[in-house]
């Protein structure tokens, strides 16, 4: 892979060391063993069912619709939500989970664009015109009602962003208490020398803004409405 460039590093960092009143530190810095680590106490002993309850309650706070189903019922639920939203054209990830979760017939529909399948790399344009973007969740945070997307390759970051609506498919096996559990995993990957995905999204509901008189308006630059479909895959 092509390497990038760095400019002005030495003078810049030497100046910092000088202002801190010591020699440059180029190695041997360890993170302290932090005195307090309250993040690990949160929902530490919760069962999946308890985490689902927390997630569902949080979804009301973040203006996100929730549907619950199992693998057999999933295709019908997606259909219903799309009808309710008035959505016809969909853009989805190129992700084997669609077939694993029984959605092969859905994927083959003509108004469903699989990321990466458009001629002339026109996926951004097609996705921008789609009514709804659909992705699976890679991890799901109960506390904040967040789906975590590890984008890359067939998992285009545009799918969860450009269409008018967004549907996240959430297998219950992806639910963890909060960001701490996911970030620990990413940290371990980085520590092992692996490159982390070039784009990781933590998405909590539809886009919104309170920039006009602090009035919350749902739907700004990203999707204007979001639905989480919880799939019992136990």
């Amino acid at each position: 892979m092509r390497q990038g460039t760095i400019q002005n590093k030495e003078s810049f960092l030497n100046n910092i060391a000088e202002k801190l009143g010591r020699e440059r530190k180029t190695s041997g810095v360890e993170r302290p063993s932090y005195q307090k680590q309250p993040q690990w106490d949160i929902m530490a002993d919760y069962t999946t069912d308890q985490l689902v309850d927390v997630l569902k309650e949080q979804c009301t706070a973040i203006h996100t619709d929730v549907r619950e189903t199992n693998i057999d019922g999933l295709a019908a639920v997606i259909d219903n939500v799309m009808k309710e939203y008035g959505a016809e054209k969909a853009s989805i990830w190129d992700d084997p989970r669609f077939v694993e979760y029984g959605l092969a017939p859905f994927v083959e529909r003509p108004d469903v664009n699989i990321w990466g399948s458009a001629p002339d790399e026109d996926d951004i344009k097609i996705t921008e015109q789609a009514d709804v973007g659909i992705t699976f969740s890679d991890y799901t945070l109960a506390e904040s009602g967040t789906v975590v997307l590890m984008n890359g390759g067939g998992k285009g970051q545009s799918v969860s962003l450009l269409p008018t609506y967004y549907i996240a498919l959430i297998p219950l096996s992806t639910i963890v208490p909060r960001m701490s559990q996911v970030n620990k995993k990413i940290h371990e990957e980085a520590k092992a020398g692996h490159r982390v995905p070039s784009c990781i999204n933590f998405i909590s509901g539809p886009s919104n803004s309170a920039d006009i008189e602090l009035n919350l308006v749902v739907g700004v630059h990203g999707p204007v409405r979001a639905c989480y479909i919880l799939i019992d895959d136990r």
Partner: protein
Amino acid sequence: MPMKIGERSFESRVNKGLDDSYMRETVREAQGRLHTNKAKAEEDLGQWEEWRTLSEEIRSHTLENLDFYLEQLSENVVKNGGHVFFAQTAEEANEYVKEVAAKKEANKIIKSKSMVTEEISMNDALERAGCEVIESDLGEYILQIDDHDPPSHIVAPALHKNKEQIRETFERLKGYDKTSKPEELTQFAREQLRQEFLEADIGITGCNFAVAESGSVALVTNEGNARLATTIPKTQISVMGMERIVPTWEELDVLVSMLCRSAVGQKLTSYVTGLSGPREEGDLDGPEEFHLVIVDNGRSNILGTAFQSALHCIRCAACINVCPIYRHVGGHSYGSIYPGPIGAVLSPLLEGYEDHKDLPYASSLCAACTDACPVKIPLHELLIEHRKVIAEKEKKTSIGERYAMKGFGLAASSPGLFQMAAKTAPYMLSPFSKDGFIEKGPGPLSGWTDVRSFPAPEKERFRDWFKNRKKEDS
């Protein structure tokens, strides 16, 4: 725009703020709501003080080892295929960004909200170089089309404007023909900006936190504009203040948790995005080229001084949202893009006392800011420290105050003079007194008596009263 806003004096800015009853009402309501939301978020989270202790520990460890972590960050960005430019000054940063824009033959640049690019006047520099620069954060967009009105709050930049003013601006400059409903105004901005995103050659973002261990930039937003700016344009430039860095994703978790709660009372904002370099092979979106500009612009001068903890700031604005002074005078009165308590601490450090010497006095020292700070910056103590520097080293206090202090010093060091002063005070002030109160005080006293009465000195001094009382008792 530079950090400093306008040329008017502090006093005239404050008077303008005090006269703006709409702005004062909005700010009061906003403070109330943001404060309530934060309090609820603290309670829901639990163990708030432990979280603060941890956050402070993370920030001070990182700043103490800043050279190490910045080096690690830059090496990892390069490994990911990105470019890093260390900019000592605002000019160096702007030159570099202009160079990238020229190389890419960029006409249109879309920006998501970034305080550091405001601080270094990057938009001006790019516009002078012939680029069209479009702000995409709703608040920033409103300010930009309204003839570059400066921001008045670091999280909600257009807080000083009401929806009617915004409707009028949209109508006058963008041909908007709907009502002043926030929903309709927002929908209009969405439509206007979506096309710009699709056409933009470069996306420029700030950086809430860089992550050293993976060469990542984390962006925290609700609108999704930072995502658009980093998904569609072929080139991405992120600009960060050099202190906005964490060692690993584990610290990122803690500080993002604190930032979202302290800024707006959310558990997480709608979008928290971790970006690590340009797109990888096989990716069909995201930037093909990634540049990270790391800006000093005066920050290193704060390292190793009594003010170092000011660099711990995570720009949540919690201090602004509890400040009684901000409530009354509003953001523009501070004359800096960084208002409120943290602005009063940072502005003189970054731009010098000359333009910002009044700010450390724009505080009642009630310490609400210090209590609100999620990373425990002792803000009110730093304001006192500033006052010390201004009086003792910079000699920038007013002549009247210096003479008064000298006079007091002289009188207080001699019992005879002190007694005489105390005895004569009632007589000196008697022309101004009426029924035991002074309503129109002379000189420095007028600042007080313009708005309320000042009790006139008692004729009988405490020492005399005490002596007489003893006599009566015996």
